């Protein structure tokens, strides 16, 4: 019951959203704290993800950038001890409101992970997975082809759609995962260090692909590679980590247009990080 009501509400607000102007915020995350059990992993981070753009999350390891990304589509709910204080607004709704089903959130906000993780099924079935669980009734073949084209993988796999997705190379697997994520037509695509397991050539392919993805989706990407953020991101968010008595707590330091942030950072921490004075 609840779910149907919230589907209707979410879907209504999709309509509203499209009528507003371009530089609109797709996801507005105001995070006061994220806890794992008693451990406060992230504090005071307000991260607006602008619509139709690529937002890059950078920062040293342990700064909570992945944690923040994963809280944008409630992936962290899979961790039982996860607890968040704050709200994440998407399509005019707080996605952490009790009436919202996380499953529904994840259907609107897709995700690509650090390790390529295709299912142990055929290439075709991998891409069709999201359509099938959403009870898609239209032309499946067309939709699968479209998604594979968007992921720049179609030409490489069109003759072997029945082969296992696991038989592809790492870079191809990651593009398959992108195709799988975009097939059901999400609004936002979250990417958690999507290139960290790939070689430079495969990485470059995915970066090129991201510029095309931006046409259709709002993208947020975590990367440990500052050059990558400079190459692909329109807006960049820099996170850092406080270390006090052995506790590590990540937080947003500053966020701005990518070129401004890299050329003229407002904060001393950002400047030091960009110059490679600490990692």
């Amino acid at each position: 019951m609840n779910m149907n009501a919230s589907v209707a509400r979410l879907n209504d607000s999709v309509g509203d959203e499209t009528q507003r102007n371009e530089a609109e915020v797709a996801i507005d995350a105001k995070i006061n704290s994220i806890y794992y059990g008693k451990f406060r992993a992230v504090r005071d981070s307000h991260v607006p993800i602008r619509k139709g753009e690529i937002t890059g999350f950078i920062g040293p390891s342990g700064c909570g950038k992945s944690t923040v990304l994963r809280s944008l589509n409630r992936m962290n709910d899979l961790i039982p001890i996860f607890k968040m204080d704050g709200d994440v607004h998407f399509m005019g709704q707080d996605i952490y409101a009790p009436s919202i089903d996380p499953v529904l959130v994840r259907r609107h906000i897709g995700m690509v992970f650090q390790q390529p993780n295709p299912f142990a099924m055929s290439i075709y079935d991998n891409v069709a997975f999201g359509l099938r669980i959403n009870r898609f009734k239209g032309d499946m073949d067309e939709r699968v082809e479209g998604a594979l084209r968007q992921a720049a993988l179609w030409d490489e796999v069109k003759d072997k759609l029945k082969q296992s997705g696991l038989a592809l190379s790492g870079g191809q697997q990651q593009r398959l995962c992108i195709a799988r994520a975009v097939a059901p037509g999400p609004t936002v695509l979250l990417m958690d260090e999507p290139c960290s397991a790939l070689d430079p050539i495969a990485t470059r392919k995915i970066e090129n692909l991201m510029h095309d993805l931006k046409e259709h989706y709002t993208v947020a990407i975590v990367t440990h590679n500052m050059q990558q953020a400079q190459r692909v991101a329109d807006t960049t968010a820099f996170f850092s980590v406080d270390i006090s008595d052995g506790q590590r707590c990540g937080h947003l330091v500053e966020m701005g247009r990518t070129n401004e942030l890299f050329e003229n950072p407002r904060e001393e921490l950002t400047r030091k990080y960009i110059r490679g004075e600490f990692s």
Partner: protein
Amino acid sequence: MKSVMSGAKNDDEFSPSAPSFYDVLSDRGVRWIAFGAGGIVVFLGLYIIFEIASAASPAIKEYGLRFFVDTRWDVSRQEFGILAEIWGTLYSSLLALLIGGSFGVGIALFLSQGYLPNRLSQIFRLVVEMLAAIPSVVYGLWGIYVVIPALRPVAAWLHEYFGFIPLFSTSLSGPGLAPAVIVLSIMILPTVAAISQDAFAQVPQKVKEAAYGMGATRKQAILKVILPTASSGVMGAIVLGFGRALGETMALAMLIGNVNQVSLSLFAPAKTLASLLASNFPEAGQVELAALMYAALALLFITVVVNAIGAYIMSLSKKQEAI
């Protein structure tokens, strides 16, 4: 660590030395003990097979392959065959597998896929594992005093109204296949549950994340992704559960009725290879003893083959993980 370092500092002459005579000797000693322990197991296995086969050899010569298609076990005429026992063994084990296997896999999913808070699922797991610690004879007594009386009215009703179905074609007069199968299902459940739980635990976190990240509900993630990914491990669990059901002796000897017949009816008494051995050994004469040994050899063969298949399937699932 500290003392070694300071020792090195004080004594400039120190340099790495060859292992002492004692080091070499103890190293070899440990190797031989490990080798011996492994060797004894292999030797024992082969020796048991050899002993049983040689004790069975008079019967093998006498009855040959006829032994496997004859349903008689007639001590006075010295006519022996184990078709009814093979049927009873396979039929009861398969039925128990159907019930215990599906419950076992279900419990494994329930306990491993986050339906319960961690601590509660650990308690549940302990309870399920405790089922494996209950002695067989206790299961047998429970079957006699609880399961059979409880089953009687149900069986009578089924036989009266659905007697035309072969499964219900006889009435239950005490011990029989149905109570034996129910108890056997409970006995194999912990095996199936524990091993398939391991199989589900081996499904990589990144695969689960992929499923949930696509917006799959828990049911969709389990049925479409987690179960297929763990399928070979679950198959292995089921086969090993089957192996356990085949060899189960005491509870079955108490519950199955020990009648030599091949019947589809769930309520008819039957006999298994293990129950035949358990009930006939004490009073067997020389000729029957050889026949019993022959039956034991057949049972051993069946269980070894089934367990080997199970182990093979499990090794396939491990190989898959490696890729």
